[in-house]
């Protein structure tokens, strides 16, 4: 008997050794299972297991976000500042991968054990409202008489349905032209006056190529977000029911109101010119731009710092407002990015804490710091008056003010469409657009019809399956 046991032990040991060959030494097991002091000073509260009232009067709150890299560091700083500024609440930030993964996780988390504050992308607003996971920010605004006049109305407009503010904007970006300053200078193009609409862009790109400044004059990345922007710029609705704002959208509008057709036609026309080229998606286009291969691209303003570091030593990067499809367009671009949501956990103390935090995140000082750290636009009007931000705008990033001005000149009622299946819709637009760009013979009307049919199907399924 004894011998059998010793054999078993020997077998176990050999198995453990094999396991050790799989990477971890067995001695590492006890070491890493004890809560040792984190070697990184990155997360300040790590030991608390779940969000409930901890010791004393401090309420623990959980904040889910999707900011990685440099932006992740900026959000950590924001939360640390909040925790240091008051003692009633202690926020633990938890990164939950990108917005889509975070939604997946939220969907499968039982109510009450999810986060207290959540960051979600712009186009997630309809889903958030329909799902009932979040509390309306407007209720807190009304209760406390909070003054929302400091928040850029064109940014807040996106998160407002039926005059009710649902999420408080946090990280905002807007689409714009990103250009190679030296190339435009060499070609004699004034970015402030000569990039206003598609016709002007064509002329400018021609000049760039003629002057030999760049091989390619202009490239538009195939990005569904830009398509949405150009619908807005033409002062048209993307979907019905007041752009999805008075009620849930039932079908797209860009096919019947003609906006989509004009975009496809203008885009196809541009790409078929010898001085323009289709380079693929945003990443591919940015890569070529960073190499100095193309003079004008269209992107989110949040890429500015990144493009600058890629172009370092070669050229300077400038920003200009997104061009109109036709000179007479009266609409304006809307914002992208994300907002902070107060999550419904059935606990007033926690939701009040979440409210305190999102108010803190919206203050001019915090927004100034956030914008400098990330390249997002400040959502607070007052941020441009903060000293550190003034210096930033004058020395580091002078073109940012152009974009802020462009956003301020836009109209809150052109805040952009809202629907529950926006990420699907964007994919459909991109797929059809890709076909249209690669085959200029395709009739724009057919392209738009194809987009519309597919998106309408998605909307129908969403409306049937959501409550």
């Amino acid at each position, binding site marked *: 008997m004894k011998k*059998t046991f010793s054999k*078993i032990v*020997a*077998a176990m040991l050999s*198995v453990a050794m*094999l*396991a*050790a*060959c*799989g*990477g*971890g030494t*067995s001695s*590492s*097991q006890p*070491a*890493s*299972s004890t*809560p040792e002091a*984190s*070697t*990184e000073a*990155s*997360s300040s509260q*790590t030991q608390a*297991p779940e969000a409930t009232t901890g010791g004393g009067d401090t309420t623990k709150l*959980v904040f889910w976000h999707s*900011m*990685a*890299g*440099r*932006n*992740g*560091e900026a959000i950590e700083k924001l939360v640390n500042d909040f925790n240091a500024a008051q003692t009633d609440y202690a926020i633990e930030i*938890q*990164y*939950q*991968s*990108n917005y889509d*993964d975070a939604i*997946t*996780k939220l969907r*499968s*988390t*039982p109510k009450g*054990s999810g986060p207290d504050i959540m960051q979600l992308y712009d186009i997630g607003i309809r889903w958030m409202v329909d799902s009932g996971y979040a509390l309306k920010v407007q209720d807190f605004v009304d209760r406390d008489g909070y003054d929302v006049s400091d928040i850029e109305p064109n940014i807040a407009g996106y998160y407002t349905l039926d005059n009710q503010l649902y999420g408080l904007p946090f990280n905002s*970006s807007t689409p714009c032209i990103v250009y190679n300053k030296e190339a435009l200078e060499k070609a004699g193009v004034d970015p402030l006056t000569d990039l206003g609409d598609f016709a002007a862009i064509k002329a400018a790109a021609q000049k760039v190529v003629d002057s030999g400044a760049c091989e390619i004059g202009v490239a538009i990345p195939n990005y569904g977000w830009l398509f949405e922007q150009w619908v807005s710029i033409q002062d048209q609705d993307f979907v019905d029911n007041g752009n999805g704002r008075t009620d849930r959208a039932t079908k797209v509008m860009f096919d019947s109101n003609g906006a989509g057709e004009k975009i496809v036609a203008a885009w196809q026309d541009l790409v078929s010119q010898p001085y323009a080229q289709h380079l693929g998606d945003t*990443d591919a286009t940015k890569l070529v731009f*960073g190499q*100095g*291969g193309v003079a004008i691209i269209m992107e*989110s303003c*949040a*890429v500015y*710092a*990144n493009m600058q*570091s*890629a172009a370092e*030593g*070669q050229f300077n990067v400038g920003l200009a407002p997104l061009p109109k499809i036709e000179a007479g367009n009266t609409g304006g671009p809307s914002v992208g990015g994300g907002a902070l949501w107060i999550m419904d956990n059935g606990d007033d103390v926690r939701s009040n804490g979440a409210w305190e935090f999102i108010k803190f995140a919206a203050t001019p000082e915090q927004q100034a710091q956030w914008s400098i750290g990330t390249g997002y636009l400040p959502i607070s009007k007052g941020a441009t008056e903060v000293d550190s931000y003034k210096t930033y705008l004058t020395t580091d990033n002078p073109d940012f003010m152009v974009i802020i001005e462009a956003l301020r000149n836009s109209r809150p009622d052109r805040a952009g469409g809202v629907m529950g299946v926006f990420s699907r819709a964007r994919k459909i637009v991109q797929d059809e657009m890709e076909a249209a760009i690669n085959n200029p013979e395709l009739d724009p009307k057919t392209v738009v019809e194809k987009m519309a049919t597919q998106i309408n199907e998605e909307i129908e399924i969403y409306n049937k399956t959501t409550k």
Partner: protein
Amino acid sequence: MRKDKALQSLFFVIKLLMAFTIISPILYAISASFMTNSDLASWPPKFITSNPIITNYQMALKSVPLFKFLMNSFLVCAIVIAAQVITASCTAYAFSFFEFKGRNVLFMVVLTTMMIPADATIIANFLTISKLHLTDTYIALVLPYLTGAMGIFLMRQYYMTVPKELKEASTIDGCGDLRFLTSILTPISIPAIASLCIYVFIQTYNQFLWPLLVTNSMDKRTVQIGMQMLHNSEAAEYGIVLAGAVMILVPSTLVFIIGQKYLIKGMTAGAVKG
């Protein structure tokens, strides 16, 4: 003879070229992880930078507690591997050495679980873990992976090649089932166990969605989430992402090198005893 040698060296050169082609993306990743952003964006592309920097590594380690994540991944892998080796060899033993009613049907049932994609069960598993209040624990990370049809199948196929006479001879000598499994069968199936270990390691090490779902705090997370944390979607800094990737690549490469030795050793040992 001479011709043979020439031919051999020619083949060797071809093999070397093939190996270089296959490994080149990794070599480029290592090289690029030492480049500045403008080096990465330069045209024509640089394969080796003239002024290598290590700031990418410093930035990667600063923004993500990568070592902590590595330790977590190791711990999870070790537990999963140990559990899978034990459960798979015991189950496979039953399937190959015992005669019982419904054995084949039962084995088919086990195999069919391989047909269900992991993505389909992941949410259901997560709900179970939530109900058990196990979220954000190491237990949650390993629980659904303690056994697997792939391991059982692999071990069973190997055991089927072991001659029945071996078992009969042991039985005559008074050796019980457990002893036969631990002191006779396991030593000769080292190559199978080694390949199981490598397979399970790679699979567990590369997990992303499951650890993301069941963990919340930084001190329970694993390396693949760390990689995602380095990737800023709007302004991707590839130098930093690649630096992180190179760092987490080291353990898997080591595992493969060590595992390969076991594989060969075990295989020859078995061949002699055949």
